[in-house]
């Protein structure tokens, strides 16, 4: 098939000036927020050894793979958290903790998701490494909230779950390993109907059954935590619940009521999460705008184990929700009868903060005016003689 235009592989994208400008602005805004919280930027290698990535992101199914000259398998990073864990284990073993790291980079997934259909997208986010306590979770959640606010996302909410609580509760309800796996899968696939069916058939106490059913369908504040504390005597769950209570009280004092809520069906896609997990939502987007959580076991894969928590935001998602009025600064088109003069005049004007593009084709006044009228946000500055 002969195409009229050159194609790019499915899910890859070209970003044209208008959009590139919005992206750049957003990226700057995000890096500002992260910097103000004391985070420092890192960039990681785009290509990694396949083994390195599969150790973090789980199976390599969703990775773009290619072979090195010596036959070793390479892969494009599918998330930033995994490469950053490797970077920390490699380069920052002796650094003082905690480490506060941010990034804004492109990730690649060799799996076309329904929504967006993209295989290449830009993510920005933070990782806070070296603190196991809930205070670190609070910091990261607060940064996520501030990010949403700064990005002028309208009417946003942040849902918080806890993978340990969810997993332990399921374990209490399902003693049969095969059924436990099925129940987890049902939850991951958001199939509450199936989970309820499995609960009905399980040997779990009626109290546990109804409790879990509520937990699987409700979201809310501390009342949801009380419910969990009521149905489980597990010490680990109780400790996690106490942590979340503290987190809630610390965050709620700084944000509008209803902005954060608990939801224990939130699990996130990556297997490495081992504590709180959260997702940001906004009313006019059908999927989460951002997400993250605690991953205390990931860094140990690459070196010294360290507790860590972080979150990432997909730039495309934010850009899709923003109704940013584009306040474009006017461009000046500098043209005139004496060519060489234009460069030095333009230089002076730029030093005063103007945006100046020079006529390089010797347009007459009429031609220059025609050209400018066809452009957006552009005015003509005409120089006669030697200026």
């Amino acid at each position, binding site marked *: 098939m002969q195409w009229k235009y050159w194609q790019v592989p499915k899910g890859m994208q070209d970003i044209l000036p208008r959009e590139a400008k919005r992206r750049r602005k957003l990226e700057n805004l995000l890096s500002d927020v992260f910097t103000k919280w004391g985070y420092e930027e890192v960039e990681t290698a785009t290509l990694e050894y396949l083994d390195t990535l599969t150790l973090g992101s789980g199976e390599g199914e969703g990775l773009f793979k290619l072979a090195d000259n010596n036959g070793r398998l390479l892969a494009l990073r599918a998330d930033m958290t995994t490469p950053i864990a490797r970077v920390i284990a490699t380069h920052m073993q002796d650094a003082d903790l905690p480490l506060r790291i941010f990034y804004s980079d492109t990730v690649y997934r060799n799996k076309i998701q329904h929504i967006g259909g993209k295989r290449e997208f830009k993510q920005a986010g933070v990782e806070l490494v070296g603190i196991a306590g809930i205070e670190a979770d609070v910091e990261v959640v607060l940064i996520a909230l501030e990010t949403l606010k700064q990005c002028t996302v309208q*009417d946003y*909410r942040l849902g918080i779950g806890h993978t340990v609580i969810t997993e332990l509760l399921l374990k209490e309800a399902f003693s049969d390993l095969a059924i436990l796996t099925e129940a987890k899968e049902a939850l991951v696939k*958001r199939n*509450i109907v199936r989970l309820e069916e499995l609960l009905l058939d399980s040997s779990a106490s009626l109290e546990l059954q109804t409790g879990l059913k509520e937990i699987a369908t409700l*979201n809310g504040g501390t009342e949801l935590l009380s419910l969990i504390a009521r149905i489980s005597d597990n010490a680990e769950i109780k400790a996690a619940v106490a942590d979340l209570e503290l987190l809630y009280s610390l965050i709620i004092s700084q944000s509008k009521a209803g902005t954060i809520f608990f939801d224990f069906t939130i699990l996130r896609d990556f297997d490495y999460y081992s504590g709180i997990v959260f997702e940001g*939502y906004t009313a006019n*987007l*059908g*999927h989460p705008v951002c997400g993250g959580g605690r991953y205390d076991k990931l860094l140990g894969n690459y070196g010294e184990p360290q507790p860590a928590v972080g979150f990432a935001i997909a730039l495309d998602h934010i850009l899709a929700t923003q109704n940013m009025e584009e306040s474009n600064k006017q461009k000046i088109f500098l043209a005139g009868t004496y060519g060489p003069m234009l460069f030095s005049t333009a230089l002076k004007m730029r030093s005063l903060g103007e945006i100046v593009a020079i006529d390089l084709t010797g347009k007459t006044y009429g031609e220059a005016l025609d050209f400018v009228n066809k452009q957006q946000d552009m005015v003509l500055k005409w120089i006669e003689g030697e200026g």
Partner: protein
Amino acid sequence: MNDWLTIAIPKGRLGMTVLEILAEAGLPIEAVATDSRTLMFEFEAEKVRYLICRSSDVPTFVEYGSADIGVVGKDTLAELDADVFEILDLGFGRCRFAVAVKDEVAKKHTNKGIFKLRELNNQRVATKFPNVAEEFFSHKGMQMEVIKLHGNVELAACVGLADMIIDIVSTGKTLQENGLTPVIDIFSATARLIANRVSYRMKNTQINSLSQQLRLIMAERNKHD
């Protein structure tokens, strides 16, 4: 706009039943029809909006968040694998997925009352539900050639385009008339209430209370059946 509840309703008979139970739950449905040219119905006072769409499109509208919730058969849902919350089994619109073969094939491969599906490994199967078929056979460890058709799937088995079909069976009459026998049940499907993953969190109270009401209504109905 954000406090509106947008509900995707499938066209046709299933959609009529959905409207009936929504009305029982106190939602406005006046003049809403699932077979008219009007595709969108809005109730300003109640802040409810209905989208009338093809059954197989309901999960798509919900997944992308154009509708907050919707009702769709589990058969369609299983085939589409949409990323939505499946929150309530409404119990109506029951049908089952089954493997069916020609009567003589059924006889030939049945031993002591058990159909030996495995003897048909590497054969062709025709279906409107290729994903359901792939999933079913891969769980069985069988390799099959799956042929996607858009309707009248029985025909494929009759003329030998395929050795078996996977289709939805409600009464089994169509199969019978075409000389086919259902040999294996895959699963049975009923209508499900589904929700967008963000709407379910942003409008949790609203959606859950409706879901609770529908659950009670369905339980009440089933009692009388």
